[in-house]
């Protein structure tokens, strides 16, 4: 009876995917690459060996953590595109602690660094949240501006106060974090580290927070309809700020994990675009903690392909960024088409007209 709805939704998604692949193919042809080879490298390389698979997973960890935070804030009606800056702040705090904790046991230092990263990111997320709630500053503008502020502050920190004294070449970078502040690798010869446990824990925590607690209910209510929530007695600005702090804390923790698990020291350009990709992942996962897991895996593949594209093809890795933007544009358009009852009705009339007539006769 109702299967035309399903067919409608599936066909919309299929058309959207085809459009995305086609635009991507045009770009690849324009830069003189081989379309099928490029797509094949993106999809197949991660599954070539366990090592490359774990490369995908270590890119998935920060994406997943950041996207969880962005899901919380987006559900509360505030779009956090400042994850990049919050991640920088988290890295600074975690580096400051990780490089100054010699002699303490590992079980103490690692959580301390992650918490410090979370607090720094959360405080940095508090600013745009407070500005939005109290002074009506658009969060889209304030978070973007704070990204640049944080990036500058970060490069100051690794150039002056956190600079590695042993580094003579003049490249700004911090000291290497001590052994008691690194997340150990899970398997020999693979880069996958313990940070994945934090990511899994956070998925559960954020899921419970959003769907099983009063806080989460009030946040979602504030995001669904601000006026209705206010009428229902919910302190909207309070939950707005809280959601931004949680979102920032997630990004900060992702920074700490990236520091302790992958890079080992704070270096320039360390966030590597994870903040913006996190927005794409959160949208792709429909702002639902459980769907964000496969979404972040998919984007882990995409980010990992940057490395392979550079080695194996003539296609510049910047293509991945263009594809991400394209995916956002297509997702938002597709969501509107799917939820539009009018066009669904038109689709039914066009392709399922007979069934409609027979129904009327029966009635």
């Amino acid at each position, binding site marked *: 009876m109702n299967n035309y709805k399903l067919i409608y939704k599936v066909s919309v998604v299929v058309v959207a995917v085809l459009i995305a692949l086609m635009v991507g193919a045009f*770009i690849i042809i*324009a*830069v*003189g690459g081989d379309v099928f080879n490029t797509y094949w490298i993106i999809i197949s390389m991660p599954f070539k060996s366990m090592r490359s698979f774990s490369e995908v997973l270590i890119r998935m960890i920060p994406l997943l953590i950041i996207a969880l935070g962005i899901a919380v804030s987006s559900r509360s009606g505030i*779009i956090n*595109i400042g994850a990049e800056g919050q991640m920088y702040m988290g890295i600074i705090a975690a580096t400051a602690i990780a490089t100054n904790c010699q002699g303490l046991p590992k079980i103490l230092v690692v959580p301390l660094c992650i918490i410090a990263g979370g607090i720094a990111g959360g405080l940095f997320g508090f600013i745009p949240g407070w*500005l939005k709630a109290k*002074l*009506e*500053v*658009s969060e*889209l*503008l*304030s978070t*973007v*501006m*704070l*990204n*640049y*502020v944080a990036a*500058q*502050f970060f*490069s*100051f920190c690794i*150039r*002056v106060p956190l600079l590695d004294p042993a580094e003579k070449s003049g490249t700004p970078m911090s000291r290497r974090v001590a052994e008691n502040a690194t997340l150990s690798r899970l398997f020999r010869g693979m880069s996958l580290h313990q940070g994945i446990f934090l990511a899994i824990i956070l998925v559960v925590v954020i899921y419970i927070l959003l769907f099983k607690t009063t806080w989460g209910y009030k946040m979602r209510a504030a995001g669904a309809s601000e006026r209705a929530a206010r009428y229902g007695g919910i302190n909207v600005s309070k939950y707005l700020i809280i959601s931004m702090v949680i979102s920032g804390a997630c990004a900060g923790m992702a920074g700490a994990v990236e520091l302790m698990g992958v890079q080992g020291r704070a270096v320039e350009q360390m966030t590597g675009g994870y903040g*913006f990709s996190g*927005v*794409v992942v959160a*949208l792709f996962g429909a702002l639902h903690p459980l769907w964000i897991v496969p979404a972040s895996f998919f984007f882990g593949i995409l980010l990992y392909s940057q490395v392979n594209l550079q080695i194996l093809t*003539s*296609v*510049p*890795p*910047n*293509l*991945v*960024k*263009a*594809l*991400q*933007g*394209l*995916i*956002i*544009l297509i997702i*938002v*358009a597709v*969501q*509107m*088409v799917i939820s539009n009852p*009018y066009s669904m009705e038109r689709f039914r009339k066009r392709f399922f007209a007979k069934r409609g007539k027979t129904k009327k006769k029966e009635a």
Partner: protein
Amino acid sequence: MDFVVNTLTLTVRFAVTLMIASMGEMFNQKAGIFNLGCEGIMSVGAFLGMLIPFSMVGAGQAPGYVNILGLILGTVCGALLGLIFGIIVITFRAPQGIAGIGMQMFGVGLAGTFFRSFIGGTQSITGISSMEIPLLSKIPVIGKILFTHNPLVYFAYLLVPVAWYVIFKTPWGLKVRAVGTHPRAADSLGINVTKIRYQSLAVGGAMAGFAGAFLTLCQAKMFNAEIIGGRGFIAVALVYFGQWHPIKIFLGALLFTFAQTLQTQIQIFVPQFQAYEFLTMLPYILVIVVLAFNRKSNRLGPAALGKPFNREMRV
């Protein structure tokens, strides 16, 4: 003295980028479209502004028409990207904030991809050099500040009164404002809301593309993937700061460019100042502070800003 004159001269010249971009953004917002993709469109414009002169004459002095060709190509492609953004937010009625982020990533990524494959690494071009206007540039101080720029700068400044005239004194400007304030009322009076919004996006995109091309041809004289560096976002913020009025936006652009030029000039003239990152932060912090103390201006904006219009929807 040198310091002051230099700073002011560069401010007058560099203000053009922000000014044109935010003027274009004003056209978008007056019609009710919040285009956060300005940054991406500027990036593509900047790349095309570089590509044509570079591929035709390399790093040498390009004849005037080649630079103009780059400028025109940047403008046209900017308009096209504006129309693509229109398909997403007008025809599909997608939420404009997120779609804008998508547009930004798409534009920056696209420009970066083509840049890597057609040009390779960072290269510089001669671009459009500045010229001294005979007589007028001989006036002490003021002559140097105001009359030593290339013709494009004056053309760009001329666009400010033109934009004011178009938006407030022409029938099309009236339609744009109507569509951004109360699309349903405009629709009932026979104005084609969709068409006007598409047109304003094309105008805004063209101006963003122009601003990007100006940036590479007259200001930076080189290109890299991060060259816009948030100018597109500042342009969007400037529209709020200027309360959707061309003249105020123009003043805002001058102020912010002054802040930006001041920090680069301090780095040049006072090299012993070590923590220059804090100076670089200054313009961005200024944006936030201005927006925070300007909360009333949110209510002066177009009433239907950011709201998609659906003719078929019941009210």
